[in-house]
């Protein structure tokens, strides 16, 4: 059932509406659990749109296998998606830095408050992101170490390649995931693919994972595929930042093992034909993030290498 959970009047003839599609099991089949699938907080991250579409189709085609409530929120930032804007147009802050919001502050903080209140009490929430337009990411779940114990067992069921347990940071306390986890609603953050594009293979992979997770929670009784065992990484991540300005030309593919010292690409100067920097791997490991957008400044992130955790 399609419902509007927040509606805010815009100045001229229009309302900003956040919509939710609630899928419920047939009468007598409800185990009482609820899972929320949330995406589109950043307007330039579209991978979750494909997942939302596919999940809707599968669940609606087989209501006989559904044993819990599934709430799908495809667009928490509809104005951003509509206008190809990462943030909320005319608002300075990243929307994922204003949660849990407040009832009476700015419009965006009001929306954030209403979103949290709507999800509050769900058994699980999955917040799907897609990196940004600059980077391609291997399907992964990112977990704040504060919530590692509760969340890692759930993340393992999601058919993703990698679980990144990262250190806590004060600024991240204002994300949707942190806000929900802080009030006892378990929230997993998925990062996969690249901004402004759909990567169907990743969407299909995560779909299998969500169905599998639902099955382990007694919410789905349809067929599922065996899920892959993710690598769990903590601080074993090497960051690869540009040291020069120019065009990054990659010589490797995303999602491959690289050796220490291996050439990964060059930063080139199109004006002179010179290589500004030959980019090499600082350590051996899995290249799970790779730059997709070629123009770089010094400091631009070119990739991330997972340097440990494979033996598990």
């Amino acid at each position: 059932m399609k419902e509007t959970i927040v509606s805010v009047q815009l100045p001229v003839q229009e309302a900003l509406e956040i919509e939710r599609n609630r899928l419920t099991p047939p009468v007598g089949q409800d185990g009482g659990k609820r899972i929320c699938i949330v995406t589109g907080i950043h307007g330039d991250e579209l991978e979750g749109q494909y997942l939302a579409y596919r999940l809707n189709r599968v669940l609606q085609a087989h209501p006989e296998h559904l044993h819990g409530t599934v709430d799908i929120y495809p667009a928490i930032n509809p104005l951003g998606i509509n206008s190809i804007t990462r943030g909320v147009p005319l608002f300075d802050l990243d929307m994922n830095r204003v949660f849990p919001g407040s009832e009476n502050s700015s419009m965006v903080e009001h929306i954030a408050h209403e979103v949290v209140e709507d999800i509050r009490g769900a058994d699980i929430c999955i917040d799907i992101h897609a990196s940004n337009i600059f980077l391609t990411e291997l399907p992964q779940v990112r977990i704040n170490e504060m919530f590692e114990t509760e969340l890692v067992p759930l993340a393992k069921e999601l058919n993703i390649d990698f679980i990144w347990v990262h250190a806590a940071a004060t600024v991240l306390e204002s994300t949707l995931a942190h806000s929900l986890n802080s009030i006892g609603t378990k929230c997993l953050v998925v990062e996969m693919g690249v901004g402004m594009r759909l990567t169907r293979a990743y969407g299909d992979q995560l779909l299998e994972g969500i169905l599998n997770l639902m099955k382990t929670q007694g919410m789905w009784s349809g067929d599922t595929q065996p899920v892959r065992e993710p690598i769990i990484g903590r601080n074993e991540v090497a960051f690869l930042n540009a040291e020069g300005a120019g065009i990054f030309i990659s010589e490797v593919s995303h999602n491959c093992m690289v050796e220490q010292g291996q050439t990964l690409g060059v930063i080139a100067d199109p004006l002179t034909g010179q290589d500004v920097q030959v980019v090499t791997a600082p350590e051996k490991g899995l290249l799970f993030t790779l730059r997709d957008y070629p123009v770089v400044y010094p400091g631009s992130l070119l990739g991330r290498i997972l340097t440990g955790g494979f033996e598990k």
Partner: protein
Amino acid sequence: MRQETLYTLDTPYRQKLAVEGFRFGRGKKCCAIVGAIRGNEVQQMYTCSLLVRELKRLEQQGAINTNHEILVIPCVNHFSMNVGSRFWAMDQTDINRMFPGYDKGETTQRIAEAVFSAVQGYDYGIQFTSFYVQGEFVPHVRIMHTGYENASLANLFGLPYVLLRNPKPFDTTTLNYNWQIWNTNAFSIYSHESDDISTPQAELSVSAVLRFLSRVGALHYTCHNGYMSAILQEENLASVHTTCGGIFHRLKVAGENVRYGEVIGEILDPLTAEVKEQLIAPTSGTLFFAAKNPLITQHAEAYRIIRRMYS
């Protein structure tokens, strides 16, 4: 006055980004002053430029006391200013949400780190900045509650108001917050404008900074005493929110006094000009903040009022 390039960054297809600083006096690091970090903070850059001009004159007159060094950085981010972008044009990140920065990190983290290195270790830090909600403020000094703040020092600017803000998580990466954490007494100065230039407002801010520097012993500077500042807690200000969207017909501006029950604004239907809502003052007092955009959404904060007990 010594002009110094504090940081340079190679960039694709454009000249290097060079952050320029101006030093006055010598010896102990007394005060660092930072202007535009965002690309639309034109008023903040302009204010700093006037301050540079005035400090240069004062230094030539021998008015800067010995063993006091003052550093002014009028503009950190002319790269965004020159292309009309408030944030870093490549990725829309905000340098003032990147402090204390990281010299091995992403581009704007590196810029923040370089600026922070340059302005660290001073007794006092002053930033001319702008707020994340668009609108105009009554001129004030803003400090964050970090446990290290010293509100009485902020009185030395002689501006009418000092505002204390409880930081939210997103505030913890601003220059002001990090200055305080690293033992610099930090103050943010807000004036009416950002995108446009107001010379009277800029001169008011310059006077306030010179008054402050004089009172902490850095300058010989003769000026009037300014105001006895009222210290405000942000959460004690009365907010006026809209209950509908439309054209914002502003009847009062920041700094004006209002009475309880007075109509201080209207929301008009954008197609028929009918009044959809009257915005009523919930208390008597002085307008601290007034939204400025002619269009306004529902649930927006149109005004903030300093209750009469403060004014």
